[in-house]
């Protein structure tokens, strides 16, 4: 299971890298969203969140229990990446409105010197 999820996280990072390196702004933002999901999966795998066990409450379950912390971390981090993606989408939309393009190579640089 761990190996499988690690490979999946790797595939997600690959996809995200491809998207982030593309020229279209909206693809870049989708790329960052996928990137954060890869990180969440990694936290899950690294933190032992994939083990099978009961809830970590005293007096319940039969000895083996899962660590609840990775899930709490992931939930927090999902909320944050939701907020960041939302801000980025609105920013991209405003940029498109203002400049009439979502191609990053046309948005390049301020003119100085």
């Amino acid at each position, binding site marked *: 299971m761990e190996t499988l999820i690690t490979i999946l996280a790797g595939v997600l990072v690959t996809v995200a890298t491809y998207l982030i390196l593309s020229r279209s702004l909206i693809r870049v933002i989708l790329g960052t969203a996928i990137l954060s999901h890869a990180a969440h999966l990694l936290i899950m795998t690294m933190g032992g969140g994939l083990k099978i066990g009961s809830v970590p409450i005293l007096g319940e379950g039969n000895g083996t229990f899962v660590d609840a912390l990775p899930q709490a971390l992931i939930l927090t981090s999902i909320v944050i990446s939701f907020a960041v993606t939302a801000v980025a989408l609105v920013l991209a939309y405003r940029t498109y409105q203002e400049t009439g393009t979502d191609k990053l190579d046309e948005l390049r640089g301020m003119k100085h*010197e």
Partner: protein
Amino acid sequence: MNNVLVMPMIIPVIAGILLIFLRPYIKLQRWVSFLVMIVNAGIAVYLLNRIQTEGILRLDFGGWEPPYGILFVADSFSVILVLTTSIVTAICLLYAFSSVGKAIENMYFYSFVNFLIAGVNGSFLTGDLFNLYVCFEIMLLASYVLITLGGRKAQLSESVKYVVINVVSSWVFLIAIAYLYGTVGTLNLAHLSERIAESGQTPLLTVISIVFLTVFALKAGLLLYFWLPGAYSVPATAVAALFGALLTKVGIYAMIRIFTLLFYHEPSVTHTLIGILAGLTLIGGSIGAIAYKDIRQIVAYNVIIAVGFILVGLAIGTQAALEGSIYYLIHDMIVKALLFLLAGTMIVVTGETRIDHMSGLIRNYPSLGWIFFIVMLSLAGIPPFSGFIGKVLIGQGAIETGSYILLALAFISSMFVLYSLLRIFLNSFWGETIISKEDKVPMKKGWIIPCMLLSGGTIVLGLGVEAIAPYVLDAANTLMNPQLYIDAVLNRN
């Protein structure tokens, strides 16, 4: 009960939320935000004095004992930075009152400044690695909004880069946290420090520390500063001053904290690497500072030089050098804010951004010229201004450990700082005035008073070093002895 510990973060949050409801009352918004910063400064002074008598303070959220819950920890280092942040922000707000304009103020400007400060103070005070990530994100989200307020084309295209860079670096941060949690199974800083010490910092942990170094290098602008000059030169002057004074400093704070508390067992790898990066930053920043004629770019590259300089202190890592770093950190927060405000004011009064298009400003605006002169001396490290003590101590540390290359780079970069600012001074303030009496933009009190306050700050800090010396000494002492921090957090006295 140490509930007062969370105040520097929670008061700005509540104020920021309330200000959303008070949108039409801009005057009220201004003074509420100003008051929040003053109250924060007061709390910081109170905390600082309590720390001297009671030792490091901590607050367990929800009563969950460490290492299980998250917590805020206040030691001298973090509280000194909270204090400086509050004062600098209050003064930048004063400048913002008369400079940002109704249209931006109406778009929840003050709310987001409050959220930014909440994130910054939270990052300084937190005692949990994941919480540090969350506070970073609060700060960054607020900064994404602040950088775009105004919505000019250049702002939007620069902020796209700024957002993407920071999202990617936050991703690396998350990855580093995942690796560290997978390796040692905790995220509480004190507990982490203890477990890493037990394992003697295995090579695996050293590699993880390099991942952390990458993250904070991106945030602080240590060598990976390519995004910084563009992003810091587009927003409104008051916002740029806040960014220049605070944002990179949070990255520096995190780096100093991580590499003195957690990963201090293999200085030959980590601290050497920081030293190399700091040296390269100094070189790159110096070249940038003298290469451009756009005043905003010159100022932004001066931020980068300061980052390199402060981290030279960390790379050397002796008591004296860390003290120097802390002094220089405080000094730089004040002076960089001032420098950005001055540059913004010069641009407003002349309508030009290039220094070779400005001339003879000192005739029209003598006070502006003299304040710029003070900043220049202060940044170059000439006594009695505040840059002096930091530079002396870092230099002393470098000589003690024989790091002569870093010493040379640090002091040559000071010459470059002096030269780059002197170039602005000679080009823009001396010479024939180009502004005729009719076209002269009157200097507003709201512009010059904050500048005077900040330049007063650098003089007071320079002359009154004796007064803050015990606090800085305590801060450096805590950084040098991680056991103090661990004992205070994990309750083992």
